[in-house]
């Protein structure tokens, strides 16, 4: 996944490097020390350009994109903004040079080819939401938020969130399916081709696919159980009137 994102976004935001697989693979490299040096040097550029933490009340998290003209030293512009806001609320408003009139200014997300870099939009919006979650802002009808996540095309979401996951799921489904076919064959003697036409085997296939989709982590089993309990809980609460020992209740 991180591979995909870094391939498609030419201006990696500061949060990207930590997602990269490279750090974990250092021990596999022929010259780990050398590689690590180079990597640090490469990553070293990011912090300079990167957005300082909004906790320091930085007005432009967009600095990393190079689009923000006023992004030199982080601390300097932060001070007046914080001062201006201090009288209103303790926490500063969310600000970003690419956030214009309640939406992301897509023209500032362009990559070299002129197309919109949707990955960066997703990052920016995730960042904005996180920010608002930590310090909620007053809603205002003049300064309305009009950004709608549906303007980000479906393939951008798929590419970013589904494809890395899909690899794993496909791999799992294939392995589970293979071994199920193997065991069915060894136990019953029904060959792979015959299994395709067999109802029982089709059911097994279905169960395998559903299982792979629904249970992706071990916790998912518990979560599913909880979900089932939860979905019938309200029914039970309503039906309890009809379940007491009274013989006269007309059952629905």
């Amino acid at each position: 996944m991180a591979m995909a994102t870094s391939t498609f976004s030419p201006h990696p935001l500061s949060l990207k490097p930590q997602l990269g697989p490279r750090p974990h693979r250092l021990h596999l490299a022929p010259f780990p020390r050398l590689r690590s040096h180079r990597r640090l040097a490469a990553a070293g550029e990011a912090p300079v350009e990167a957005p300082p933490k909004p906790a320091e009340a930085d007005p432009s998290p967009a600095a990393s994109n190079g689009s923000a003209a006023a992004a030199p030293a982080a601390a300097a512009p932060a001070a007046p903004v914080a001062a201006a806001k201090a009288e209103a609320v303790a926490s500063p408003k969310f600000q970003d040079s690419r956030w214009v009139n309640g939406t992301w200014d897509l023209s500032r997300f362009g990559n070299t080819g002129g197309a919109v870099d949707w990955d960066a939009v997703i990052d920016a919006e995730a960042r904005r939401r996180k920010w608002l979650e930590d310090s909620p802002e007053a809603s205002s009808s003049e300064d309305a938020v009009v950004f709608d996540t549906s303007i980000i095309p479906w393939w951008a979401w798929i590419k970013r969130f589904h494809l890395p996951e899909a690899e794993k799921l496909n791999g799992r489904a294939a392995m589970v399916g293979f071994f199920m076919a193997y065991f069915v064959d060894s136990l019953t003697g029904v060959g792979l081709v015959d299994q395709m036409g067999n109802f029982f085997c089709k059911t097994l296939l279905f169960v395998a696919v559903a299982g792979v989709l629904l249970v992706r982590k071990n916790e998912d089993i518990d979560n599913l159980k909880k979900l089932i309990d939860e979905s019938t809980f309200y029914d039970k609460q309503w039906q309890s009137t009809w379940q007491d020992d009274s013989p006269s209740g007309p059952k629905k």
Partner: protein
Amino acid sequence: MTSLSSSAAAARATFLPSSCRARPAGGRRSQLLVTRAAASSPKLPGGRKLRVAVVGGGPAGGAAAEALAKGGVETVLIERKMDNCKPCGGAIPLCMVSEFDLPLDLVDRRVTKMKMISPSNVAVDIGRTLAPHEYIGMVRREVLDDFLRNRAQKAGAEVLNGLFLRYEAPKERNGTYTVHYNHYDSSNGKVGGEKRSFEVDAIVGADGANSRVAKDMGAGDYEYAIAFQERVKIPDDKMRYYEERAEMYVGDDVSPDFYGWVFPKCDHVAVGTGTVTHKADIKKFQAATRLRAKDKIEGGKIIRVEAHPIPEHPRPKRVSGRVTLVGDAAGYVTKCSGEGIYFAAKSGRMCAEAIVAGSANGTRLVDESDLRKYLAEFDRLYWPTYKVLDILQKVFYRSNAAREAFVEMCADDYVQRMTFDSYLYKRVVPGNPIEDIKLAVNTIGSLVRATALRREMGKLTL
């Protein structure tokens, strides 16, 4: 109505000795309806009328008392505080105005624009699809309750000002219940009131979330949400914004499992929020609601602060002998929207109608099965509504991501039309299948996008 009473008559005939079976009412139904009511509902002695105590004078009690009195039942309504201003959003659906014949001047505000505001402050105006005559009525509870009580009184119910204390169940099978209450007499100005009691044949508990009737009958508890509300008088120019508008804020900051609101009242707004799971933090949520509405209510003066429990589901037992519960006491508040006034009034009326039918207009004794008929009918009519709202709450109030998706979904005209149809007219209208599929796809899309963003947010450190 007539069909109800005739079937009740049939039921009563069921257990009469075989010599009486020749009656036309017995007939074929006798094999089907084997109910205890029939066995034990003799005619009341001496031609006296059935006596029913309605405890609580809210919408449920008022509606019940009116329907009982109209049906020829001798009704006593006990209300603790006649001008009680219950903390309550005060929104009533359009169908309530016509069904309960409410005069239009009872409605302070007609809300036609509902603004929903997501955690990331995306605001959606709901109500574009409303026809010109459609609105959500905002009433003041003290006015509505008073009106319904007065109408009950006009219909022949006796309205007592007093505090219900407890009741005693009858010793013998068809005996009477003794209701003990503290009588308040405004004329002699005595504080505390005097203890009095009277005898009734049945009791309708309409005394709200902290119901004493429910406690006495062992109805069991329900989970409740706590609602906190401040009534804020805001400057006129800001009030103009809320003239026809109500606001709903969703988000973890405002409430982890409900919503925060700004509802317009006659000359002020009510700002509030509610929660089930984090009751101790309600003050924090209220502060967050105020912050989210900030500029719009700035400079307002808080004229009143209220808090009240809101039931989350019906009590385990809603009927016991000839005692039953209606309204909030029974727990008829929807999830998700937290609506209860209409269901309270409706359950009160349905319960009363069942009693009137079961007692053949107050001439016979009723029994548990008559009261259970009301429960069965209420559950049949409204269970789907409650269930749908429960699902909505579970799906969309789960997390901020889900709330974002919820608000996105509400921007859709089809959703708005369906929501308002089911809210205003309390009937589930079958939708257009193609639109339904479109909606399902869009909703899942919204949920997936919001969840994906959520995952990304988890990786971020600001």
